[in-house]
């Protein structure tokens, strides 16, 4: 089964402004007050995660004005408006609100005069105001929106957290993915999702979770459906985990291209993010659970700067270069055996 070419689906196409405000307050604890045009907030839709500061639009340049984005008016814009004569100010603001803006945020505790607010309201544009600094507010809002408009996809596989590393076990049906996950849970690791994994892309990182339906159930062939959380307790599950490695299980047949040194790194691209991929054929005597733990530990070692394959490569290269004569035999690792009597 191919992991690539998964269709990316946005969680939502649009958000109502009223819903956005409500959730934003709830999640980020920012104080946001409705300033004008509150009645229109149920009708206006935000369709993009990007934000825009309409400085140039206020100055009169509206050729490439991204009016469909959320508009944030901070100190710069407010200062600019303040320094205009009253007629110019009205003209400038009227031009801004003549576009179909979804919503305007006034940040850093700035204020707009009542007649300007009235103009926004007449055009059906809701205006909100916050004391929070523009950049901080934009960061929080942007992060929040990115989550709402994030692309997601569904993969077939089982997601586990092994020593803090998110591993997706993939492969055809009936290979024993769930059984490996069960074994891992038994050894103290945590299940994120069995069989169906929802991936969400957020700032170039893929976050995995279960679906509302399958969360923390597992199917064991021959047994049926079990509930991992009630069986093994809260420590055996996780709601979300970053996807870091994919472990693709396969049958013994096609094993020509197996990685034998670990010097070459295979990756697979999902939603535009490259994820390391490990192919593992199932063979008699192979304990996939232990291998999954080793994969996690190896990943951790690499993360902390130690790459076993690279170190071994360095060692062998040095040895070849240092070899004084051609017949230097392989030597044992122990120089002198003391008596080992038993």
């Amino acid at each position: 089964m191919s992991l690539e070419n998964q269709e990316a689906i946005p969680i939502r196409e649009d958000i109502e402004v009223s819903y956005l405000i409500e959730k934003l307050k709830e999640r980020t604890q920012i104080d946001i007050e409705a300033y004008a045009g509150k009645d229109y907030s149920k009708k206006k839709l935000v369709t993009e995660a990007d934000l825009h500061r309409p400085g140039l639009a206020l100055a009169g340049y509206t050729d490439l004005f991204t009016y469909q984005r959320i508009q944030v008016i901070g100190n710069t814009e407010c200062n600019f408006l303040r320094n205009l004569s009253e007629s110019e100010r009205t003209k400038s603001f009227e031009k801004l609100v003549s576009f179909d803006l979804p919503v305007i945020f006034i940040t850093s505790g700035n204020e707009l005069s009542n007649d300007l607010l009235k103009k926004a309201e007449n055009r059906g544009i809701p205006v909100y105001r916050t004391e929070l600094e523009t950049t901080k507010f934009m960061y929080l809002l942007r992060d929040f929106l990115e989550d709402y408009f994030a692309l997601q996809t569904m993969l077939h596989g089982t997601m586990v957290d092994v020593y803090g590393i998110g591993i997706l076990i993939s492969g055809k049906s009936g290979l024993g993915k769930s059984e490996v996950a069960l074994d891992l849970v038994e050894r103290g690791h945590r299940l994120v999702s069995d069989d169906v994994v929802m991936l969400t892309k957020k700032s170039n990182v893929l976050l995995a979770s279960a679906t509302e339906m399958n969360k923390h159930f597992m199917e064991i062939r021959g047994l049926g459906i079990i509930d991992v959380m009630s069986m093994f307790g809260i420590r055996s599950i996780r709601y979300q985990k970053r996807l870091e490695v994919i472990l693709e299980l396969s049958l013994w047949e096609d094993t020509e291209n197996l990685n034998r040194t670990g010097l070459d790194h295979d990756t697979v691209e999902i939603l535009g993010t490259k994820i390391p991929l490990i192919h593992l054929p199932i063979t008699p005597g192979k304990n996939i659970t232990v291998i999954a733990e080793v994969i996690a530990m190896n990943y951790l070692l690499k993360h902390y700067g130690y790459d076993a394959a690279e170190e071994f490569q360095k060692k062998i290269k040095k040895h070849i270069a240092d070899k004084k004569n051609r017949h230097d035999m392989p030597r044992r690792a122990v120089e002198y055996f003391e008596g080992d009597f038993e």
Partner: protein
Amino acid sequence: MVSKKVTVKNESGLHARPASTLVKTASKFKSDFFIKMYGYKVNGKSILGVMTLAAESGAEMELVLDGPDEEEALEAISELFENRFNMAP
């Protein structure tokens, strides 16, 4: 690769039992089996996958089969949808 649009006809939708019948039937064949719904593609040989869709009566989905016995598999699976998964109405 073959595909076909089908509709869930049994009144209670694709709950555990029909899902199990569907998965069992699909697993008899070698071909890969996917169900496309809501733009997502789930593995039709995975019972949790099929149940994640929680397809109600009247829901439409696309069956996609790919493999050596795709034609027979598609026929057997679409027949299940026609026969309301061999369940009492």
